[in-house]
């Protein structure tokens, strides 16, 4: 399964969810299905799922999807326990497991080949966990998974996409950060559609 084929499957289901994306999924996701309910996790690796958890706890009426990375989640594994404890019902945590730190040059993830994020989420207490290495199977089961009581963790075994990070020129003046430009719009979109 490629990252992009999995994103295509998700993009076809995009509705009014808040989607928190990070690392190599962020750009391709926003190109496919970006809306004013897209939050970004940039500059605090590992924080996508807990940023989304906060939204889910504030607005339990709104589904929240997390597009996470294997290296990212590994940096804050305790978040699995925190999320399981909070038990947000409409929370789908999708982990792209490509086995490498892709943006820094595709160095292998520690314990790659043995580590299972679905198994760790199950052990943490997620309501449902599942693992796919085939995009057709993922597509076939996704509707049921999106309707299931959460938190749900979907681990996708994907091929590295060769998304090496090449930084642009250093900032030369005081500019708002990407997250500072992003989140007020999501807040306003949610406020315009209050829970009934």
């Amino acid at each position: 399964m490629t990252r992009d084929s999995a994103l295509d499957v998700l993009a076809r289901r995009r509705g009014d969810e808040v989607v928190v994306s990070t690392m190599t999924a962020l750009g391709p996701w926003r190109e496919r299905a970006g809306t004013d309910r897209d939050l970004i996790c940039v500059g605090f690796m590992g924080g996508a799922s807990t940023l989304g958890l906060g939204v889910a706890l504030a607005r339990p009426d709104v589904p929240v999807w997390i597009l996470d990375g294997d290296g990212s989640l590994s940096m804050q594994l305790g978040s699995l326990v925190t999320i399981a404890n909070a038990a947000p019902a409409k929370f789908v945590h999708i982990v792209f497991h490509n086995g490498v730190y892709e943006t820094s040059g595709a160095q292998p993830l520690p314990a790659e080949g043995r580590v299972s994020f679905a198994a760790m989420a199950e052990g943490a207490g997620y309501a449902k966990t599942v693992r796919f290495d085939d995009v057709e199977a993922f597509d076939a089961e996704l509707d049921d998974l999106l309707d299931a009581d959460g938190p749900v963790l979907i681990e996708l075994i994907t091929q590295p996409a060769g998304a090496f990070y090449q930084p642009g020129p250093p900032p030369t003046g005081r500019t708002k950060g990407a997250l500072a430009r992003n989140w007020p719009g999501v807040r306003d979109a949610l406020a315009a559609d209050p829970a009934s």
Partner: protein
Amino acid sequence: MTTAEPIPAQTLLDALLGAGVTDVVAVPDTHQRSLISLIQETGEIRFIQTTTEDEAVAVSAGLIVGGRKPILQIQHAGLYACVNNIRGVALDGEFPLVFLIGLLGRDVSKAPTENFGSMVRLAQPLLDSLSIPHHLLDGSDDVGLVDQAFDEATQRGGPVALLVGAETS
């Protein structure tokens, strides 16, 4: 001479309620355990527990996106642990996060920066280095700073820290 006195948990809880706080996002703190117990017993403010302070920062930011008014309750060691998330979320992301930080182990006869223990002594210099405004809650007369901290955080578009000087009673 004592420079900090215990603040009753009820006094601090009233200050949080008066400021309109909806959620306390916390990693357990020995120093503020009486307040944690009272929050959990009364249920007037939602208590959200995380396993790390990094998570507490991100969860609080998400709560703000969703229209809530959280406060983070952590210990000084947790402040040191979550510096990158404070930088990435609260500072660069311009989230108006307010922190309640317990100065566990402080010699209350001295100012924090005059303490021998590095956990207490380095908290204010670290906040200064991050350009985060901070205020000491050294007694019940200081709890009005809770409400002011939220105003300050909103006005500056960034974090503000409240340092709980003595163990809450």
